[in-house]
């Protein structure tokens, strides 16, 4: 073919590695400084675990407010998953199969939240909960409703992609063999949707646990403070490396969930004879073909 393919030593190699270093090294440094022995987040004073475990007041696992924020974050993420997963799967199936003018409206309505800036959603929900649906108090419940609304679209996108790739033939075969419409759905389609369900669990968990804007607009002070809110309010103050430790914990949590999800996905694929392994699992989660 042409010589384009063989330009291995193209200057782009440096650009790409430069980018990777630029994008990751600052974060790695921030992680390292969470183990700083001193109170500074920028001058190294020796290694210690004081900001993680040992300091009785300031370490993240012993400080009451930080522990409260950690448990708030986990509860919010899990509660959102419980609500948004069934809602999103049903909406994905329904919106893919209804026809007519209603279908266009439903599809428009499901894809718009995905590209609406979070500040707009957060502001709109804040005004709604304080002036229209005043039965919903700000705090955990409002944050739950907000996060479900914002992440519903991503579940629908992930599940719908899987529905498209499955096609209708499996269900039709089940129907021909005497299954009722419901049985075909329950015993044929749903089990095949499993990888997309797992992928959306991972994506939604990571979105909610990291969410700052909506959760902050709908919070009601300390009782509903999550980890991102706590980080945000102390970044520019004279915070100790405990802040770095807390942020590191957040990153570790999402990566743990991501890695568990990726392995679960590739195991599922292997067991069910689908090709692709880890690469396909990565594509499931990022919605981008590798």
């Amino acid at each position: 073919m042409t010589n384009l393919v063989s330009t291995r030593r193209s200057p782009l190699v440096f650009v790409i590695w430069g980018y990777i270093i630029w994008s990751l090294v600052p974060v790695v440094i921030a992680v390292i400084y969470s183990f700083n022995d001193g109170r500074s987040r920028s001058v190294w004073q020796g290694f210690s675990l004081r900001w993680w475990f040992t300091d009785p007041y300031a370490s993240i696992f012993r400080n009451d407010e930080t522990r409260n924020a950690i448990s708030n974050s986990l509860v919010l993420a899990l509660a959102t998953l419980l609500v948004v997963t069934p809602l999103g799967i049903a909406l994905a199936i329904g919106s893919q199969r209804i026809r007519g003018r209603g279908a266009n409206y439903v599809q428009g309505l499901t894809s718009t939240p995905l590209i609406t800036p979070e500040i707009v959603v957060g502001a709109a929900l804040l005004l709604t909960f304080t002036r229209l649906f005043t039965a919903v108090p700000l705090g955990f419940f409002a944050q739950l409703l907000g996060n479900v609304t914002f992440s519903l679209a991503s579940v629908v996108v992930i599940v719908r992609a899987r529905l498209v790739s499955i096609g209708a033939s499996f269900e039709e075969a089940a129907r021909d063999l005497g299954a009722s419409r419901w049985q075909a759905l329950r015993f044929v389609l749903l089990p095949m949707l499993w990888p997309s369900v797992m992928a959306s669990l991972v994506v939604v968990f990571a979105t909610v646990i990291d969410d700052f804007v909506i959760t902050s607009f709908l919070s009601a002070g300390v009782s509903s403070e999550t980890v991102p809110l706590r980080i945000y309010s102390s970044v520019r103050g004279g915070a100790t490396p405990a802040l770095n430790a807390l942020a590191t914990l957040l990153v570790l949590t999402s990566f743990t969930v991501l890695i568990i999800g990726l392995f679960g996905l590739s195991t599922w694929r292997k067991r069910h004879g689908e090709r692709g392994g880890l690469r396909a699992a990565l594509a499931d989660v990022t919605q981008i073909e590798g």
Partner: protein
Amino acid sequence: MKNSPRLWAGFAIPGTVWLIVLFAIPFYAVACVAFGTIDPIFRDAVPQWSPLSWDFAQARQIFTSLTTGPLRGVAMRTVLYVVCAMSLCFVIGFPIAFFLARHAGKRKLLLLTLIIVPFWVNYLMRMLAWVNLLSVDGLFTRFMRNFGVNYNWLDGSPITVILGLVYGYIPFLILPLYATLERLDWRLIDAARDLGANSRQAFRLVTLPMSKAGLVAAGILIALPMFGDYYTNDLLSRSPSTEMIGNQIDFFLNASTEPQKGALLVLALSLFLLLFMSFYLRSTRQQSRQVTR
């Protein structure tokens, strides 16, 4: 499959109702607050639920303020910062996505994984990392001092804010760009080369026109959240001299007694972004139609 419309409608109803109640109606609520009145005693915004009694005096005032008055600076700055950050994102991101799609070879999975990592690192963590490096005794500040650069990075520096936006949003550009370029039929580009085009001509006349729709969509995908960003500014600058429209919205809704102004700014921002959003939705719908065909 298609002969059971009621069943499928039943599946779509709960989610649709959810989105109507918690996504569509809230927008209406914003309008009702924005065009509502102000309580004469408590000075609080009183929403007007009927469009017939909407009052546009405040809206006119905010519009004048955004175009010629005190908010003009904020509006212009928002556009300027987003345009600068977007251009930098493309200048850095396009070659990377291009390389990944075209030349990565055996290393592709490794590089792709490393590039996806920031995607999964919390945005606040990534900003926090730079706050540490750029603070007065931070590593980067100290490093730059060796070259005689003594700059106060975190105190209202537009450079820091723009670079912060680039740093924050570029992962969200590179992946969709890569996906677009990956889908291209590279044989056509090879054909152009074989027919005598040099690499620059092949790029300008074949690669670019073929990937244009994807490039625009990817750009919009990061422009939208950037226009609504206030936290990057808050974390890296905290100065009125770098405020963007998002900071004003955050201020009016969360820290002032004038939520009506906040509602009006949300409305103004949404209307401005609606242009980009509808363009994006139309182009992705066209793409998915091409795929299903």
